[in-house]
């Protein structure tokens, strides 16, 4: 399963990077969202997917049977932060539309005069 997951993660990263390299601001934001999903899965896979029980202490479960709690803790933090970043991006895009009337990165570049 881990090997399949590794390939899936690679595919998600590929799609995310491809989206981020496009001209449209909204696509770039979608790309970052996809990138964070990929990163979460990567963390999970790195720790190993085989766990018999969720990492909650329970009677009758030996220590080795719990799923690895460390990646889960990291991912939990990452989910919240990526949410913060995505929503910030969205508002930036929204304001950029309002002020400048475009989401094309080529047009948002600015002109020589502004440098």
């Amino acid at each position, binding site marked *: 399963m881990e*090997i399949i997951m*590794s390939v899936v993660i690679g595919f998600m*990263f590929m799609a995310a990077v491809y989206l981020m390299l496009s001209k449209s601001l909204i696509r770039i934001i979608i790309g970052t969202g996809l990138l964070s999903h*990929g990163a979460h899965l990567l963390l999970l896979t790195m720790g190993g997917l085989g766990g018999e029980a969720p990492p*909650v202490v329970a009677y009758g479960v030996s220590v080795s049977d719990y799923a690895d709690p460390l990646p889960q803790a990291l991912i939990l933090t990452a989910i919240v932060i990526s949410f913060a970043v995505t929503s910030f991006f969205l508002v930036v895009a929204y304001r950029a539309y309002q002020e400048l009337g475009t989401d094309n990165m080529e047009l948002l570049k600015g002109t020589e005069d502004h440098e």
Partner: protein
Amino acid sequence: MSLVLLIFLPIIAALFIPLLFKKVGQIHTGWFVLLVPAALFIYYSTLLPSIAEGGNRVSELQWIPSLDIAFIAYIDGLSLLFSLLITGIGALVVLYSIFYLDKYREQLHNFYVYLLMFMTAMLGVVQSDHLISLYLFWELTSISSFLLIGYWYTRDRSRFGALKSMIITVFGGLMMLGGFVLLGIMGNTYSIRELISQAPELVGHDFFVWALVLILLGAFTKSAQFPFYIWLPDAMEAPTPVSAYLHSATMVKAGLYLVARFTPIFAASGTWVWLVTGIGLFTMLWGSFFALKQKDLKGILAFSTVSQLGLIMSLLGVSAAGFHVENATEIALNYAGFAAIFHLINHAVFKGSLFMIAGIVDHETGTRDIRKLGGLMSLMPISFTVAMIGAFSMAGLPPFGGFLSKEMFLTGMVALTEFDLFSMDVWGILFPVIAWIGSVFTFIYSFYFVFHTFAGKHKPEELPKPAHEAPKGMLISPVFLAILAVVIFFIPNIVGEWLVKPAVAAIQPFMYDSPSDVHVHVAAWHGYITPELWMTIGIFAVGGLMFWTLRKWQHQYERFPNTLNSLYDKGMFLSDTGANRFSRLYMTGFIRSYLVYMFSFLIIIVLGTFVLNDAFAIDMNNLAPVGLYEIVIMLALLGSTVTILFSKSRLTAIIALGAVGYSVALFFVIFRAPDLALTQLVIETISVALFLLAFYHLPQISRKEERMRFRFGNAVIAVGVGVTMTLVALAAHSGKALPSISEFYKETVYTEAGGGNIVNVILVDYRGFDTLFEIGVLGIAGIGIITLIKLRLTKKEGQHENK
């Protein structure tokens, strides 16, 4: 302690200057400033008797004790002489500036703050015993000089000159710092006195010559030696009091001070003797030669300063040669050290007065162009007298101080021919010859300066203002200096006893134990005709003749190209445009380019590390079983990802992104991460809502939303990143270099932290700070969002200056 604090007195006084300027505007701020150098001068004078007997004063103020860096004020003969020059000339210059700078039109607070800052810096340079604090003060003189040259900052030439001086002197300062560090490594101390006491051991060290050259670079740039002198003529854009003070009497002498101070350490090296004497003498010739090309009064004086600094520099080089001679105190070579210091005093006196006269001429006629001037003698008799005394002293005529030191300079140069070390026996004859030619040109430009300004035909129609004598107050300082130039001629040995000999003893400790050992008697007439006297007579004769015919051959100067300056200009231009063009090459302004750089480097670095460490690994054991649910969810995930890639509309893409998020949440469920699944579901729902909200509010710019065009370059990079990440995931899963800390968490979660949900306990207990900062990030994002939405900058017209 108190001595160290006195160094800082001017800069502390500077704090009150803006206040005085704003509140007590009717009194010229200069009067308050005058108190500072005057008081310091009186105080330093009281130290004279004890220093003249060979004593010294030390006081220390800790700065960075952990690094053993301190401000140490060490006053011996050399430091005291310079301190007296700085405060004495400083007081006269401030007095002069009171009449030179108008209290209503000029920004006096800026001017005097910079001037006082310079005073502190310069006192610090000449009194510091610690190399690092010496460097600090050294750079501070460069900075205050920059600010003072650029005082009239609205003028292009001022800014250009300020930048030029700054670049050249700071370059030299950095080189000097390198030399200091090398010295510190060699001697394991930063104290100059301790280094001097270890001088014999330092000579053989590998770094010795490096340190020597680097420190000389610092000294040569500061003292405007060839080929670094080019900043000094452009520094003449500064107000004249500044030119008189910084660029002739004090700051440019910092390099001389440095050479004098380090002579006891480096004198043992032949390189030192050759470099200091050779460059100094060449600079003297070069400066005096090109002084005659100048049309600007201050330009002539600037080149003359370059030349005179070279003269003193070469004398310091000769004084170091005394180290290599057995009976140095008995032969003519011993005149060199004395002559260097003596001429330094004379130069400060006559050049200070000449600069002030140039300022007066500029002030009262409105021009400094010597072609427009002439015949001012009858209109400005006092200025003329002062200028004549100064110029004659500079030319080396009796009865003025310059005559004595000039003759001693020639003595020193002639003495070099008898010196048989460092192949001086072959080349030695060049030194007196160059010195003589330089002196001839010195004679000519001195006369050129005075007589082309004050004699000849008066041309009132070419002057912007009708010429008249300067106000009395403005004349006090130059007249005082002119009187001093005459007085020195008649009491040279008293000056020698009190000022010169203690300084010479500090420069040549290998020859003299105390100032009283310096057996140099200065006399205008030795009772018989010496070779030097013949040389002097020759200078007067040839110089006089050439000055007489100056108009016939002066235009020949136009043939000489301005190579060094155009080299500097081209260098500055090229580095400016070149750097700009180079960064334009990759700073395109497209976010795509930057992302491409980042991702490419990511691929190169990660894959490179893989290759270098042979980290490719696939572990087929310990794999979790593949189940039906997993396959289904995985297909959903891949399907929605592909949908994002190929969707035509944004709405589809957003919904597909939501699908990816929910699939990930389902994965979390299957892989036994209930907390993650819950969080992911909540967050994903909010995210999709947010996306849709933003999408809803966005104006419809275009109906036809293009499908993403396929771009090969992007695809290559995307695939590269994807492959890299797959490899990373495989390697991370397969090779476990270290045992995971997870086991510790699993075992101790209940006993140590008293919780059952391991993930939660990690977040709030073991890694509590991470969570705290995560909340911080959320908070910052929230504030950012609110400001973006709520705060609207009202567009102001005229903000874009470039439109």
